[in-house]
């Protein structure tokens, strides 16, 4: 290609080009490498994020339990009035009996703190179930304190100095004693899944938040789906071309990009202060999230309606259906999979949202499982936010665990959306 020819002028251009090729190839490689690096970086971040959460959170699904021998002394527990018994005294006695050499108030308090405060409630529940146990000596597995739990899971290093360690030397000695006697073990953490929030990590669970999320999403879905689809139908099929309709469209597009926290301000000022709706209720949360997800649902529903070919509507009109009948009986059913996909994605977005809910008081510490949409409640992402703020090491683990649950729900919803799209994808 670059051999000289006698009859033409020296081929200046091609020589210059060939001379520059090495440099250009290098720059091409550099550029491509940059692209690869960016992708790798983005995916690396994702891996790091998920990795850090899983590595911190897998332990949340297990809880350490210890076995105590207790004497259900009839003097401490009145068979007539089971709710008033001194159950924690029984537990403490059991602990003292195991380690008779412990003396002094401070030492004893250290010893008692090995088991969870909830141990007494568990014992109480057991006795109420079987009142015949009173007066007997029984063995009972009770949850360990969160620090013991963290230690037993190996997250506290024995080798660091005692004063830098939450678990002290004598506590470690006692725990080792438990280990020797096979009185300590890790079990599946059912509390984490069926309890409400608590100040004690070992008694805290996500069920309250899950139920709160459910009610909030239920309200959101019930409001945003019909309203969103109705708006989409109006704008796509009936709206005349005028300034007002343009204004609506501009509004929808802008609302889709308004920061979520602004919706929280709206919820606080309008729903709570103006209309006097209760604070912290999932109903208000649902209202706020409805306003947030409406643009998403409207935009995706319109796209779905638009993708139904006009010939179908014309065919219905041609056999004498009214425009309304043509849309509700023919166009809408065909657009439904697309609309549902958009709705599920909108719901997934709403499920992960927390900032606006902080504004309307869903950030309160709520122990009870909400029983309705007007009860004070919180939602899963806000629960994560609350736990993430707690200093206890065991809450760190539970926060990550709750994140894993939340991500699980999101994956599930997205998978349904993907399957729906694949299943009903249609090319006209």
């Amino acid at each position, binding site marked *: *290609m*670059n*051999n000289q*020819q006698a009859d033409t002028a020296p*081929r*200046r*251009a*091609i020589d*210059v*080009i*060939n*001379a*520059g*090729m090495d440099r*250009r*190839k290098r720059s091409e490689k550099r550029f491509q490498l940059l692209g690869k690096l960016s992708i790798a970086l983005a995916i690396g971040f994702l891996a790091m994020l998920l990795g850090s959460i899983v590595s911190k959170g897998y332990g949340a699904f297990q809880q350490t339990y210890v076995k105590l021998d207790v004497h259900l002394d009839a003097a401490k527990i009145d068979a007539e009035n089971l709710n008033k018994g001194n159950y924690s005294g029984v537990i403490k006695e059991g602990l003292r009996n195991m380690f008779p050499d412990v003396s002094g108030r401070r030492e004893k308090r250290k010893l008692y703190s090995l088991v969870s405060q909830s141990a007494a409630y568990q014992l109480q529940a057991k006795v109420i179930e079987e009142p015949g146990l009173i007066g007997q000596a029984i063995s009972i597995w009770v949850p360990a304190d969160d620090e013991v739990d963290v230690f037993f899971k190996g997250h506290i290093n024995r080798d660091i100095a005692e004063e830098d360690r939450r678990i002290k030397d004598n506590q470690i000695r006692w725990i080792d004693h438990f280990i020797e006697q096979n009185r300590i073990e890790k079990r599946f953490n059912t509390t984490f899944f069926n309890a409400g929030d608590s100040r004690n990590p070992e008694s805290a669970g996500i069920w309250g938040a899950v139920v709160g999320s459910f009610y909030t999403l239920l309200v959101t879905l019930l409001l945003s789906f019909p309203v969103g689809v109705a708006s989409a139908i109006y704008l796509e099929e009936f709206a005349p071309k005028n300034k007002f309709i343009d204004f609506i469209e501009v509004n929808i597009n802008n609302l889709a990009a308004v920061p979520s926290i602004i919706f929280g301000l709206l919820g606080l000022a309008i729903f709570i202060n103006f209309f006097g709706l209760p604070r912290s209720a999932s109903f208000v949360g649902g209202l706020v999230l409805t306003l947030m997800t409406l643009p998403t649902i409207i935009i995706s529903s319109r796209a779905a309606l638009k993708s139904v070919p006009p010939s179908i509507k014309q065919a219905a009109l041609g056999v004498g259906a009214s425009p309304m009948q043509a849309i509700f009986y023919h166009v809408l059913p065909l657009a439904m999979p697309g609309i549902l996909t958009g709705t599920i994605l909108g719901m997934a977005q709403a499920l992960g949202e927390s900032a606006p809910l902080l504004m309307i008081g869903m950030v309160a510490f709520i122990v009870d499982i909400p029983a309705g949409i007007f009860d004070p409640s919180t939602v899963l992402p806000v629960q994560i936010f609350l736990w993430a703020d707690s200093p206890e090491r065991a809450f760190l683990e539970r926060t990550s665990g709750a994140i894993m649950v939340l991500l699980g729900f999101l994956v599930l919803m997205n998978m349904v959306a993907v399957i729906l799209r694949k299943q009903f994808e249609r090319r006209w």
Partner: protein
Amino acid sequence: MNVEQETGQKEMELNPAQTKEAMDLQSKTPKVDRENRETVGDVRVDDPRMRCTDINVHYGDKHAIKGLNLDVGKKEILSMIGPSGCGKSTFLRCLNRMNDTIDSCRVTGTIEMDGVDINGKSIDVVPLRASVGMVFQKPNPFPKSIRENILFGPRIHGLATDKDDLEEIVVNSLKKAGLWDEVKDRLDQPGTGLSGGQQQRLCIARTIAVEPEIILMDEPCSALDPISTAAIEELMLELSESYSICIVTHSMQQAARVSNRTAYFHLGDLIEVGTTDQVFNAPLHQLTEDYITGRFG
């Protein structure tokens, strides 16, 4: 190289006689049968600029070009005609490896340019495309000024760095493309603001600016009005004094007006090659005659 030149010469020796014979027997001898897809006519020329041997192109499962042999001579205009989807554009894009940009496209066979296979492993497409320029069906000036459109090639190839040299390239290329008088006062205005015909000439000027040896034109006038078309055809004739030009065209009149040689493609086969006169006046193949007389196309 030598061997090829010899064969080329042999063919050259045979060539006039054969053509003469064909002329004589034009109306009397039966045409080559429609079912026969062997190429008729001389695919080889003496001292070719490019020589294609046994080219096959596949798009996925589709066999777009089947065992094609063809030479491109120096300083000639070779036109390629044929019905839509016959592979003529695909073949044109093989000549500067533009097919590389299409993922599903596979090209086999050898295309020699001055004796070097351009599909060879060691060959870089960048210098190849610089020496085999291409003008597309739809004028596609970059969304930049007229000056920057011309200078895009010289700048990326580093053909000139000096401001005066660059300016000289702009002036020369525009003059060669016959556009200078129309745009000399607005070199800094966007190239997309020109009329269709001017845009196409701008694209030709842009191609000339990198000093190619061959210019490929893929239906360059199909999007243009007759006046612009005439301007471009005139330009082609001028350019053919210093470059080889391969042009794919839908217009038989255009092929007849501008080209020295014509190749007729049909469904991936090269059916007939010959001088333009011969192909249009005395086609040897029945399919060629069918196409030229307007039975399909």
